[in-house]
């Protein structure tokens, strides 16, 4: 635990040492301010920030990976990982510390936007409940994105690959899961729906398998590991596909919309704090952090 906090602290320090910090903060504050002025801060508008929050959630898709991409990739690239991995620091403490540090950096990025509350207070009487829940939601979404980012960063010593991988995974859980139920739901009869879901999901299998193969090969440089990972992914996906496509297309649609990050976020933006949404974010972040620990351990054992 002590090591986790030590690592988090150093991460926060290093964030402000790197130019990325200032680019990220400036970009975020600029975009947030633009949305605030254009969509919230105008006469006749209700003094609330939910439209701003719903816009910011998309900005995070680029902001969070920019914060997380260097976390482990840089250590792998410069070789400092060798000192860390031979010091008495466990992989779990390392990953958790990196993530907490990134979360603190992200909090520093959000901090300037609190000034918007001050402007609303000057001209109106804003309801702080939904604003607070909106910020809670932003923190939870950021925590999940950063967990995905830590995982991607643990896979490669190339920060750009880490960034792109993170954005890709986030897009799967936002854009892809948003459109998929729509495609399936448009069918009326369950038989037709099943066929459509089959045809929609089928091309995903080779795409995902290829992505897994490429990432595994890049990350491990081991042919046997790549082959094993690819075969396991292929078998799992085909099994999942058959399982989902056969009983009901609507099951698939429901799963997709459950996995959609934005769906979980919009409640927060509206001022609703639902425990199931919190459970979703916390468990999803935990899952990706666990993946990251596995990625670190696999690096050691090859």
């Amino acid at each position, binding site marked *: 635990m*002590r*090591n986790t906090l*030590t690592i988090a602290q*150093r991460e926060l*320090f*290093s964030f402000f*040492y*790197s130019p990325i910090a200032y680019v990220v903060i400036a970009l975020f504050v600029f975009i947030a301010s633009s949305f605030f002025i254009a969509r919230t801060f105008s006469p006749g508008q209700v003094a609330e920030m939910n439209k701003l929050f719903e816009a910011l959630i998309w900005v995070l898709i680029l902001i969070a990976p920019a914060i997380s991409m260097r976390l482990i990739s840089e250590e792998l690239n*410069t*070789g*400092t*990982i*060798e*000192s*860390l*991995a*031979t*010091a*008495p*620091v*466990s992989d779990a403490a390392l990953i958790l510390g990196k993530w907490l540090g990134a979360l603190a950096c992200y909090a520093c990025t959000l901090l300037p936007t609190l000034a918007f509350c001050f402007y609303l207070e000057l001209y109106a009487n804003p309801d702080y409940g939904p604003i607070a829940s909106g910020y809670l939601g932003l923190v939870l979404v950021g925590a999940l994105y950063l967990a995905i980012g830590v995982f991607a960063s643990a896979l490669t010593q190339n920060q750009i690959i880490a960034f792109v991988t993170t954005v890709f995974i986030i897009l799967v859980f936002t854009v892809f899961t948003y459109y998929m139920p729509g495609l399936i739901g448009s069918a009326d009869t369950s038989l037709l729906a099943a066929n459509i879901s089959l045809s929609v999901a089928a091309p995903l299998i080779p795409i995902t398998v290829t992505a897994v193969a490429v990432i595994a090969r890049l990350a491990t440089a*081991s*042919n046997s590991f790549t082959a094993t990972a690819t075969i396991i992914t292929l078998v799992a996906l085909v099994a999942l596909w058959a399982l989902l496509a056969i009983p009901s297309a609507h099951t698939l649609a429901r799963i997709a919309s459950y996995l959609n990050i934005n769906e979980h976020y919009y409640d927060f933006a509206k001022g609703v704090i639902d425990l199931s949404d919190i459970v979703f974010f916390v468990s999803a972040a935990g899952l990706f952090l666990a993946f990251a620990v596995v990625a670190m351990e696999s690096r*050691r*054992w*090859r």
Partner: protein
Amino acid sequence: MIEAQQLTKWYGPHLALDRVDLAAPQGRVLGFLGPNGAGKSTTLRILTGYMPATSGSAVINGHTVTDDPFAVRRSIGYLPESTPLYPELRVREQLHLFGRFHHMSRSDRRARIDYLTDRCGLDAIINRPIGQLSKGNKQRVGLAQAMLHDPPVIILDEPTAGLDPAQIRDVRQLIRSLAQKKTILLSTHILSEAEQTCDSLTIINRGRIVATGSPDQLKRQARAQSRIVMETAADPQSVRATLAALPAVADVQHESADDRWTTITITTTPQAGDIREQLAQTAADQQWLVRELRHEIGSLEAYFIQAIDGEQKQSA
């Protein structure tokens, strides 16, 4: 104490280490010597637990590397080959960071860093960002970091790389002064370095141990197969024939130095040693005109090259 048995490491189809045995008792400095790419760093990485061996076992300070990695990590100080440090940290911050990883209290860290600042000559750079330091200074910070938690076992991968001669001397003295209480394993490809710093040497080439012994033992082995160089104006063919007939001579080679003089290189049998008197007598008997008779004493370098060449010929 470091003990490694039959360490083997495959990188895919490439055999990087082939049944490597190492033993370094406490109070000794073991030099791990070999050309670049011989498997030195791989071995050290296996010993520190950074990467696993394909087979074989390693015990550090009584802890098996694979079974008790954290006990091993606590008992070693390790300087990796490229001296990786955080460029954005100041030297003092870097040392505090790793002191915290070893759960040293603030006062312990301060005392220890003050001591190491003095010992490793960090006074001038202790408050400077690491990114601004020269290679040699970074190397000293890395050394200080390896000794930070006062570990019983110190493993240094090329500790003198990038240092100037004065700094090399300082590091050597530092290592020697630590030697009584610690087990030190250092890798290097510089022979004179190994000869002066280490109590025993292990020479590795292409992933295999080719020789083990104290520097003196290795030098004696090198000397056993010494060469004698003779410059003569006599007919090279007859000189060769006469000398080759001597029982102490294993091999005779010649090359002409200029129109008149020929350089004869005589390799003696391992038992014979210095046979210059015998050669002088022979030359006098045969009435050869001789202007030089020189005994080439085998150096550690000669032995090193010989050991590695022999290995390469065997495998070819």
